[in-house]
Structures are given as structure tokens and as C-alpha cells.
């Protein structure tokens, strides 16, 4: 039995001749494959940004924040309405979450509206202006205007606490206060600041950035977006996130890939019909089924390479100009390229499998006389029908 290498060596000149002879058809196949892969890459790029927003939206109810601003309004009315409409889950609270990534970890700042059902959910009384609520386990250490809590807030089912309030006139969040957010890293490590107005909240945010983040904690990146604090099931939230984030592009991608697969099937079938006689001749002079398959797979390998190269070129040309239309943080990642090529190969395989298999199993007479070919059974010589 000959090795695969020997088979490939025997048939690759035939594959090259076939590519040259039917170059129009193979160029069309490459174009179709390139279109499918390029569409996937564009969708993946969109998803990388939309997915970032979706991940912000998936914050479970753990008050994932190091600093919580409470104010009259923390989100624009339109944003609030949009998120309540699109949430699709039992939204406990709508807030705004800003993540500051520093070398030493991530600082999360959560902005909650003043009238939030959060307090009822955690069994804590709604804070009143000026009220200071302290956890049972901790003692206040601050003066009359700011109360500071210890480095770590209570974990688990312990109630949320409001540890201080701030008015517009206060010089709030002095360096001393901010140093009491000592451990960079994930929550819980909460400092609640009650801000009466948006302006107050904004000034607090500015102070936070200046005093806490710089110069001692160089900022690597900042992500900002609406966040839902939810108490529904993970499945319900997943459905909501999927419908908001993935669905807009998935339908279009599916249609494009289906179009490409059908196109590949049509062109490869036409190519097979045109080559039936040649395939019969090759089988007559002694080329085994493995050789036929190797030849056809070599041809499809060229199509795959050309289609992938085309897709990369299209993606490189179209993604930069479209960046303004894509969600913030969108970018083409190498993992997306890998998966795009894999999806393309899958579509190509689905499109060309039937003609390749038929060429492999058909007998000489079936090819020469246009007799039907069954893929279902392997017939041994002398099969009685």
C-alpha cells in the first residue's frame, strides 16, 4: 500500500493542472470562502466590543464596587430607560459602573441612584441625608463629615452599608480617605459616599482619579458603562445579554455563511460534473479512491489558502474605517482569526463533501455512463442486487 506522501506526490501535478484549467471556478470558490471568513471576522470584532459591555452588564448582585456613589441621579434618563427596556431580567437596580484598571489591580466605582430598591433587597433602611449607617462589625473612625470604613467590607450575606455622606461643599475624599482603600483588587472593599447631586458625584470622581489613581497607581485602562444589578436567574440574564449583544449580528452571519456554503456546493458540483470523464479515466488507469480524494483535497487546500488570504485582506481593509461604528473596545483578536478560519473550513467541508465523496466511491462505469452513485454501502465485488 502506498503512503499518503507517495499518493500526494503522484497526484499534486494533476491537482495543479486542474486548478489552472478551472481557475475561474476555483477563484469563485475562494471568493465565497473569503466572504464567509471575512464576515465572521467583522462579527467577531463587533462582538469583542459589545461583549465587553455585556460583561459589564453581567455584574451579579454583590455590589462589585470599591467606591459607591449615591446620588439623586447617576444615569441619564434615556440610558436608564434603555437598560430597563433591554434588561429582560428582574432588574434590582440600574447603575453605572466604571472600572479603573491599574497596575495594582482594578478599582470599581459604582454609581447608584438615590432611590434604589437596593436597600430593601439587602434589608437595610434606605439612607437619609446625613445618615450614617455602620456595619455592626465595624466602627467609625472618621470625623463628622466623612466616615470611613475599614479596608474590607463585610462579605457574603452581610447587609450593605452606607458609611458616610458628602455635600457639595466638602473637600471630600482626601488622600487620607483614599488610602483607606488599601488593597487593590476585587470587591468587596466598599466605601459608600452619599452625593446629593450629579455635580458632587462628578467632583468626587475627579478627586478619585487624581488622588487615588495617579500618580501612585498608573492607570492602564478605563471602561465605563451601564450596569444592571439583578436578582434573576443566570439563564434569564444570559438570554437578555444574548438578545442584546449577539443576536444583531448572528442572523446576518448565519445567512452569509449559508450563502457561501450553498455557493461552494454548487460550484464544486458543477466542477465534478465536468470532470466525471477525467475521473473515470484516472480510475481506469489505476488511481485508487485515496488518490482521487487526495487530488481533490489538494485542490480544496489551495481554495482554502486563497480564501483565507482574501478574508484577511478584506478584514484589514474594512475594520479600521468601521471602528467608529463599532462598540467601544472593539478589536480583531488572534483567537477570532483562528475561529474564523475554522468556521470557514467547516463551511467549505460542508459544501464540497458530497461531490468529493461521490468522486471517491463511484465506479468507472457509473462515472462514464452517468449512473447513480450510492454513498451508503461499500460494495464488494460480486454484490448481488
Amino acid at each position: 500500500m502506498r503512503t499518503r506522501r507517495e499518493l500526494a506526490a503522484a497526484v499534486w501535478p494533476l491537482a495543479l493542472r486542474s486548478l489552472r484549467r478551472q481557475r475561474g471556478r476555483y477563484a469563485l470558490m475562494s471568493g465565497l470562502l473569503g466572504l464567509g471568513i471575512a464576515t465572521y471576522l467583522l462579527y467577531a470584532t463587533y462582538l469583542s466590543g459589545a461583549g465587553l459591555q455585556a460583561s459589564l452588564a453581567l455584574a451579579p448582585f454583590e455590589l462589585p464596587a470599591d467606591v459607591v456613589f449615591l446620588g439623586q441621579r447617576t444615569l441619564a434618563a434615556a440610558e436608564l430607560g434603555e437598560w430597563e427596556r433591554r434588561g429582560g431580567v428582574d432588574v434590582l437596580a440600574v447603575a453605572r459602573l466604571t472600572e479603573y484598571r491599574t497596575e495594582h489591580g482594578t478599582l470599581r466605582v459604582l454609581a447608584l441612584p438615590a432611590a434604589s430598591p437596593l436597600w430593601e433587597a439587602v434589608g437595610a433602611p434606605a439612607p437619609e441625608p446625613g445618615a450614617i449607617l455602620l456595619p455592626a462589625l465595624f466602627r467609625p473612625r472618621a470625623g463628622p463629615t466623612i466616615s470611613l470604613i475599614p479596608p474590607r467590607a463585610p462579605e457574603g450575606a452581610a447587609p450593605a452599608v452606607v458609611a458616610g455622606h458628602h455635600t457639595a461643599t466638602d473637600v471630600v475624599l482626601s488622600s487620607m480617605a483614599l488610602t483607606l482603600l488599601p488593597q487593590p483588587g476585587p470587591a468587596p472593599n466598599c466605601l459608600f459616599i452619599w452625593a446629593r447631586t450629579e455635580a458632587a458625584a462628578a467632583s468626587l470622581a475627579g478627586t478619585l482619579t487624581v488622588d487615588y489613581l495617579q500618580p501612585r497607581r498608573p492607570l492602564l485602562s478605563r471602561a465605563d458603562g451601564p450596569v444592571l444589578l439583578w436578582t434573576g436567574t443566570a439563564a434569564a440574564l444570559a438570554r437578555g445579554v444574548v438578545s442584546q449583544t449577539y443576536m444583531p449580528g448572528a442572523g446576518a452571519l448565519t445567512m452569509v455563511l449559508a450563502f457561501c456554503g450553498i455557493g461552494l456546493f454548487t460550484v464544486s458540483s458543477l466542477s465534478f460534473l465536468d470532470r466525471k470523464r477525467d475521473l473515470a479515466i484516472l480510475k481506469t488507469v489505476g488511481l485508487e479512491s485515496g488518490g482521487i480524494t487526495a487530488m481533490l483535497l489538494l485542490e480544496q487546500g489551495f481554495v482554502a489558502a486563497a480564501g483565507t488570504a482574501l478574508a484577511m485582506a478584506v478584514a484589514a481593509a474594512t475594520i479600521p474605517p468601521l471602528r467608529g461604528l463599532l462598540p467601544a473596545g472593539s478589536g480583531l483578536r488572534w483567537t477570532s482569526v483562528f475561529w474564523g478560519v475554522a468556521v470557514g473550513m467547516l463551511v467549505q467541508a460542508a459544501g464540497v463533501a458530497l461531490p468529493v465523496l461521490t468522486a471517491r466511491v463511484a465506479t468507472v462505469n457509473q462515472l462514464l455512463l452517468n449512473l447513480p452513485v450510492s454513498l451508503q454501502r461499500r460494495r464488494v465485488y460480486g454484490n448481488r442486487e
Partner: protein
Amino acid sequence: MSSRQPVTDLTPSAEAEPILRTVNLSKSYFLGETIYAVNDVSLAIEPKEFVVIVGPSGCGKTTLLSLLGGLDRPNSGEVLLEGQSYSGLSENGLAQLRRNHIGFVFQFFNLISHLSAMENVMLPMRFGRQPRRVIRDRAGELLDMVGLSQRANHLPLQMSGGEQQRVAIARALANSPAVILADEPTGNLDSKTKTEMAELFLRLNEDFAQTFVVVSHDEGFSRYAHRVIHMQDGQLAKVEAGGR
């Protein structure tokens, strides 16, 4: 089904085993009723023999040739080539058998149109394990043998019918087959070329001891044959000596 009795042509030979033999070979198709294309045929082809199979259209000559060459599968019976039965061989096994032991010549030449004459002749040898240089040299010799060395780099479409058929014969000889099966090799040629083709077959048989089984309406072949087998309704009707 014919009322005639089948002629069992198991020609006894005092010499070597028959190179190609069939035993009760049958092939049928179901088209509303069972139609026997080949019906219980037993025959033997001796080494170096030139056999011509004749008969009216639809008598089963081409089907018999397909069965002899492993291009089709019988419903019953057996074919043996140099003592090896085709039974139980997979498609790959039959392909290897055809590559190493059988040469084919068809009525419509069946050359690959985008390969030159040299490349067409090299084709069966490519699928073996010989070095390319050896293959090329051998192909050159074969083209020279059939008088076409000057056409080595021409495509089939650039050659006449007779020249294409010569290339097909050279291709059939590529792996020094035990037997060459030819299905109406002159069916698509003019009368002058038919004669030349028949003489080429004769020369290959006489000078190189090549065994031929030829299906043909052409009387010229019968003149050069050792034996002429008449088929009728899928059965062997008569066997007679050829013109040699």
C-alpha cells in the same frame, strides 16, 4: 432470455494457464423485468492470443469487456486474471489490478484533454513507485513504438483521431499489462486509419507477444485475430478461428 444454449468456451490448452478466464459470468439489470446483458459466459483467453468479440449492437460485448476489466461487477460468476479472482476485491484492489495488469483502449480514446501525449502515456506509471525519469523514458519509448514521438508535447485536441488512439494504445502498454482490452478501438476512425490501427494491434501482438481482447464490428480485426467469438443476446453463440 434466449433459447439457445450457451457456448462454453473453455479452450483447453496444453501450455500455460489461460491469462484471463471467466466462469459462468452473468450481469443483469432490472428495468421492469430482468434483462441479462451477459448470461452465463465462460471463456478463456490464452497468453499471446489475439481474440476478437463480435456481435450485433446490444448483445453484451461491451458489458463483457467491462466485466473482464473490473470496470463493472457481475451478479454472479467469476473472472480470473493470471489465476487471481476478482471476487472480494475492493474498488482499490480493482484499481491496482487495472494499473498493473490490464490496459484499456476505448472507442472515444478517453485521453485527458489538458495533458499532453507524453503526460497521458505517463499517467498509469505515475501511480506506481517508479522514478519520474524512468517513467519519462518509458513513455518516450512507447510513443516511438506507436510512431508518435514527434507529437509528445501535443495536446489531444491538436491530434487527429488516429493519433489520439495511438496515444491511447501507448498508454495501455505503459505498465506492460498482461492483457489489453479494446472496446471498438476503430469505431471513431476513418477506413484508412482503421486498417492502420488493426495493423498496429497485429504488430504489437506478433512482435511483443501482447495479448489482446478486442470488441469490434470491424472485419479487419477478425482477419488478424487468432479467434473470433460471436455473441448473441448476452451469450457466446459461436467461436471460430480468426484469419491467422
